[in-house]
């Protein structure tokens, strides 16, 4: 008996040592970060004409990574001119199969350099390497592969219509999925025969610039892809540029509205993929463990920096206590820390400004009388971190219940009936995503017909595929990215001659 007990004791120690998972850190020596980066214009790396630069930092440490060029109006002018030149000098008239060849080459190069892209994405953006390695980069390559396939089949994309490219695309992307958003924008634009001026977000320029390097390695004709880094003003100069035939913007609703006003009446095309406040509806017959996985993936994926995050949990009243108890247990398993640790589940908040914004939201909720529950995860001393957070006791009118937090913060409300669930889910100015968890198929169909959102997931959440169109309704924007529908946003359509 003594032997048995001491054996058990050893076993417990082994179990603890095992389940701590000592750090397993992805080596960062695969990436080389230059001290300073220029702009990619006309196939060359150039200094900005007026010479400004800003620092990009590593969110998990606050350390300085590199100096990024601040593009101004003059640089945007040059980039748009280069894109126009490349468009007219041949990209638009290139045999579609040759265009496809270039895009396939980009896809393969992204795969070849996947580890480098993933590590750099995690260093510069703060997201866990597991996500950048398993989701961001493979999906980015998939978007190029998918659209390469379309390049010589556009006549079948929109039946009965003749298609032509639009011209120069001004594409402004956010900091939450830097490579993936660049892929979502560039791949269809190029496949349809357009040329591109891309403006990455100021906190996450490095991987877009690496993508620029890949574009050069793929030997794309100069000027087909141009990258102008900078902050809001650079983006505004691009969005307002008269030489841009279409503006594609992913980012905040506030900026999106500003761009919409700028573009209005100019005849230039516009697609906006903006904020969200996705409702995640869990019925009492749902498979509970799997629903909890869905809830966790919906709000804690990429630290909640996801426009389509399921940030509002609506749970049927009868199972609310049980489900929240389980969810809290599950949240304790989330490992918050070094983005390059392969076992990290929740990485660093992208910037100090975003951390402040999230903190203000949660403090505001507390002062409005909400109950705040946070996981007990230990946080690193340096860098920007926020614990996975649950907000309960909401009435629905609180700021945190209505506005996009863009952080690992989930609000919880209950409902009694399907109709009430739909009413509460739709009580938002946004309409990007929603989720439903139930074992009953007919209820899934009933709900999806009524939820006002561009994407509705059933018994899963945050699934993406290059063939599946993504986009919002209401203040979450308009236009679709991905799939056949996404192509239409990059094409001039005319009825085909009989």
């Amino acid at each position, binding site marked *: 008996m003594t032997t048995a007990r001491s054996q058990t004791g050893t076993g417990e120690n082994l179990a603890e040592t095992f389940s701590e998972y000592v*750090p*397993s850190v992805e080596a960062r020596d695969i990436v080389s970060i230059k001290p300073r980066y220029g702009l990619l214009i006309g196939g060359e790396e150039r200094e900005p004409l007026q010479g400004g630069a800003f620092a990009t930092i590593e969110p998990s440490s606050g350390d300085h990574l590199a100096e990024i060029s601040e593009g101004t109006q003059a640089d945007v002018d040059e980039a748009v001119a280069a894109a126009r030149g490349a468009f007219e000098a041949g990209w638009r008239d290139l045999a579609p199969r040759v265009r496809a060849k270039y895009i396939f080459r980009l896809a393969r190069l992204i795969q070849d350099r996947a580890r480098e892209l993933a590590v750099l994405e995690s260093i510069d953006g703060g997201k866990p390497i597991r996500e950048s390695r398993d989701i961001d980069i493979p999906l980015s390559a998939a978007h190029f592969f998918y659209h390469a396939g379309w390049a010589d089949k556009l006549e079948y994309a929109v039946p009965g219509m003749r298609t032509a490219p639009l011209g120069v695309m001004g594409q402004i992307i956010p900091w939450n999925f830097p490579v993936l958003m660049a892929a979502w924008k560039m791949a269809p634009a190029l496949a349809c025969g357009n040329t591109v001026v891309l403006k990455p977000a100021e906190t996450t320029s490095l991987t877009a610039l690496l993508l620029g390097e890949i574009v050069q390695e793929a030997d794309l004709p100069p000027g087909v892809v141009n990258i102008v880094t900078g902050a809001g003003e650079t983006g505004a100069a691009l969005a307002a540029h008269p030489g841009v035939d279409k503006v594609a913007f992913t980012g905040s609703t506030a900026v999106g509205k500003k761009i919409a006003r700028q573009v209005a009446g100019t005849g230039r095309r516009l697609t906006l993929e903006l904020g969200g406040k996705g409702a995640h509806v869990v019925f009492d017959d749902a498979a509970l463990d799997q629903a909890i996985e869905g809830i966790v993936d919906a709000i804690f994926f990429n630290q909640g920096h996801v426009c389509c995050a399921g940030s509002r949990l609506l749970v049927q009243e009868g199972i609310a206590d049980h489900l929240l108890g389980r969810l809290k247990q599950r949240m304790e398993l989330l490992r918050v820390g070094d983005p390059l640790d392969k076992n990290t589940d929740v990485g660093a908040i992208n910037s100090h400004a975003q951390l402040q914004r999230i903190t203000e939201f949660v403090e505001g909720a507390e002062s409005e009388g909400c109950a705040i529950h946070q996981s007990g995860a230990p946080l690193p001393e340096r860098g920007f971190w926020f614990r996975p957070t649950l907000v309960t006791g909401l009435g629905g009118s609180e700021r945190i219940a209505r506005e996009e937090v863009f952080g690992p913060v989930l609000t919880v409300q209950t409902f009694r009936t399907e109709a009430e669930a739909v009413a509460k889910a739709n009580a938002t100015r946004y309409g990007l995503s929603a989720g439903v968890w139930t*074992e009953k198929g007919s209820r899934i169909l009933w709900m999806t017909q009524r939820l006002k959102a561009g994407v509705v997931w059933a018994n899963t959440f945050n699934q993406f595929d290059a063939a599946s169109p993504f986009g919002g309704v209401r203040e979450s924007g308009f236009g679709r990215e991905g799939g056949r529908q996404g192509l239409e946003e990059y094409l001039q359509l005319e009825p085909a001659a009989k």
Partner: protein
Amino acid sequence: MATLAGAPGALTIERPDGQPVHVGPVDAFALETRAKRLASRSVKRESKRAGLLLATTCIDLTTLEGGDTPGKVRALCARATRPDPDDLTVPPVAAVCVYPALVAVAREALQGTSVRVASVAGSFPAGQASIDERLHEIRAAVADGADEIDIVLNRNALLAGRLEVVRDEVAASKEACGHAHLKTILETGELGSYEMIRRASFIAMAAGSDMIKTSTGKLPSAATPPVALCMAEAIRDFEQQTGEAVGLKLAGGIRRSKQALGYLAIIAETLGTRWLTPERFRLGASSLLNDIVLQLRFQTTGRYGRPGDLPVD
């Protein structure tokens, strides 16, 4: 006893004492996603060493071949008590698992060691014999000195919907075991869906099994990460309802250390570290042990050994 009402998840099973347990649904997609993620936890250095030692203490070192002989079983027992002849700090495995005819041999070979004797019984692996024959085999194995009995669940009755028969047979087997521990093999590869695996888990637990086990190892489809996760979740839910902690044994196709570490991660993050003991967790395997020994040697020496250098049975 078992009533099917409404949604598939609404199944309730009555325990022999009349207490109902509620099964609840499981959904394949998120289950598989979660299992894959857990099984790919990156386990290095001290954590890996601890995991490998822990896995060793949880192994049911198994031989279930028609050609098993006393000599082979004795060699297996030697390996079970001393997995690495060159490193006595590697602990013995939990048990040796054999056919009933060889229980007495194993019992004798393991006398005075901490390694337990486990026997399959009850018309392993198909279970297609009368209940009387199956109970007789259990009693005989226990009489020969088996500490643990691995029976197979009656899939014939389960898949035909005769859940009561399944439950009552497991309860009778438990009674036939006497002091011996009962592990009930679900043979998940024959059950067709995670719902059925969850249902079978609950029936086996409700009927009094000390452990539930994935597979006989006689089918190509055996233990997989989602199956392990599905059963671990069932065990956790059963404990929540009844307060009783049932063990989990994974068997079939587990040959590599990395697989074993993946399964430990599934258990640790679903049932907690209190389940990572030989009392509540087992890995049924034969070739796994030598792979673990090689991995442990690599941890110590930094060099990969040759599999051929290790004893076989």
